[in-house]
């Protein structure tokens, strides 16, 4: 069966140990985990998690079932199955000295990135978008120029009225 990428969104009880149950499940059962983001929601008793994983259909079905089975998981949706938005935040520190400064700035503009910190020799550029766009920016800037990359991992939400609610 073909392996595909899935973005799974979870509402978790905002309790100590809940996140480790999710992470533990992936290592225990040998599932892939590409990224995982978690933070409290407007309801402080709940955390919202976005998890990016990949696998064939049977594996993804098992992943969603196993996640649902965890007592701390309140609700779950595989966003990949619906129309959704999934964005990632990246902050990238690049060399920017002399003639490079203009070049880097121009690249950032093309990608709709923002320069959020400037020193004599570096820029920090903030970039939001889907993961492919961020990958593309990293590739374009090139390893030579990059000092540090920090990425949040994808966070996702379904379009329209549908959503994860208690």
């Amino acid at each position, binding site marked *: 069966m073909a392996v595909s990428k899935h973005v799974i969104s979870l509402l978790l009880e905002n309790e100590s*140990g809940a996140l480790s*149950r999710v992470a533990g499940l992936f290592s225990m059962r040998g599932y892939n985990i590409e990224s995982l983001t978690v933070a409290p929601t407007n309801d402080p008793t709940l955390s919202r998690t976005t998890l990016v994983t990949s696998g064939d259909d049977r594996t993804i079905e*098992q992943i969603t079932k196993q996640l649902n089975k965890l007592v701390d998981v309140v609700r779950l949706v595989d966003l990949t199955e619906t129309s959704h938005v999934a964005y990632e935040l990246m902050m990238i520190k690049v060399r920017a000295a002399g003639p490079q400064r203009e070049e880097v700035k121009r690249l950032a503009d093309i990608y709709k990135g923002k320069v959020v910190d400037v020193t004599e020799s570096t820029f920090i550029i903030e970039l939001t978008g889907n993961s492919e766009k961020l990958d593309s920016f990293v590739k374009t800037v090139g390893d030579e120029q990059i000092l540090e990359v920090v990425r949040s991992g994808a966070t996702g939400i379904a379009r329209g009225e549908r959503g994860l609610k208690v």
Partner: protein
Amino acid sequence: MELSGGEIIIRSLQDEGVEYVFGYPGGAVLHIYDAIFRQQQVQHILVRHEQGATHMADGYARATGKPGVVLVTSGPGATNAITGIATAHLDSIPMVIITGQVTSKFIGTDAFQEVDAIGCTRPCVKHNFMVKNVEEIATVIKKAFYVATTGRPGPVVVDIPKDFTAPNVKIPYEYPKDISMRSYAPVSGGHVGQVRKAVELLAQAKQPMIYSGGGVLMSESHEELRQLVRELGYPITNTLMGLGAYPATDKQFIGMLGMHGTYEANMAMHNCDVLLAVGVRFDDRVTGEIEHFCPNAKIIHVDIDPTSIAKNVDVDVPIVGDLKVVLKRMLELLAEDSRRANPEDIAAWWQQIEEWRGIKSLAYEYSDEVIKPQYVVQKLCEVTNGDAYVTSDVGQHQMWAAQYYDFNEPRRWINSGGLGTMGFGLPAALGVKLAFPDADVACVTGEASIQMCLQELSTAMQYGLPVKIVNLNNRYLGMVRQWQEFQYEGRYSNSYVDALPDFVKLAESYNHVGMIIEKPADVEGALREAFSMKDKLVFLDFQTDDSENVYPMIEAGKGHHQMRLHPKTGALN
């Protein structure tokens, strides 16, 4: 009424209707033990090792259907309990395990007897709770019992720091009557349309097969299953965990399936065209090589746990639901609609199964000289009228007990099927005996397994628990030896148990009765004598054939249709 945390724990157990707590005291649980001392309702059984406590609670739970309760201290108390917790987890046994924890302000400081019990047990529990204050103790205990006993049951750990149990803080006590958790909602009935589809499929079968497992026992739905099987007239096989759900002596029962199942059960699985799988999880010991599994069958799978469905095997009609509700619905649908499979097809199918049954795959060579282990189990079944609670350890003796004891009722066969925990049998038997003091309780074991929790002979002495230990002593780790014979050209690496104790003297040193039996002619008499001693634990040390193997067998990589039969009796046919 104001109570301390320690008192609240015990009072909550009382309000849950708990009869026995199996445990072992230590620093972090001393306040709780003090609360135990000052009441009568909950009886504490002092074990000799925390692993024994978990297996006793487990045996009690398997025999009664009620949750088993364990109380251990922090650190080594908790880690010693883990084998038993994992054993219960793999077999879906409801248990609540209370572990003491170091005082809350010391958590994370590597304090004396500190271990992260929540982290250590996470992969082998249904759920676990860390208590964060005195006020939530009663609610957490209520939740623990609720989670442990509903849906697919399992063990739940409650970790309680010592300071929350201290006598100086007293708060009003009230045990919650009901509990609901927004993140946990066990399913009940199955999808109505799917159930109808299943019944229609069953009615069109030419070569049907029913395969049921431990879920039937857990959900107490054996009566519904029996009705369904009789109504349809189809053959049924039980898994190792499901023995007793359908009477072993009934003609429609074609034996256990899987690695050491009968030839007829495995051949019927391989050749069936419709398979009804009920309360099972398509374990690798059951399916054999998955590529060969039921190649021509449409599969209906009913289970309460959605993760069991389509995990190892693709199914055509998945039904997630409480088996009792689903099976009842199936019976109703069958009553409404008289369409059935063609009787000629079913008769032809039975004729084929009878031919396979005629192979007599469980035949063995009886000997006048040396005791055959299968013979001991057969005689045990006769002497106890097939009505004993039989616990076992893990290995050849476990398979022989499953193959040769006819379990006609549920919850009589108690073994560690999933985890395969040696040392399970004796403590489990003690837990059963506490629940059913008047019943015959036998622990079928081997000289290797029994030594893994042998210390519980002392617990049996303290509480007067007269179980019968049927030790099939072949001086080998028999199952290991068998695999070494088949797969490692007889290189018996570390499978010989040297330096065995004198089990008779050992039993006597605990004021139990010990017997050594060396001749086949003495087997039945010894068993009768042992079971006539109603108030004595009897250790029957049967000196059995050291080269006997468990047959038939599906070896690694083989399918149901590729069984290895007994070299002599199998070849006769």
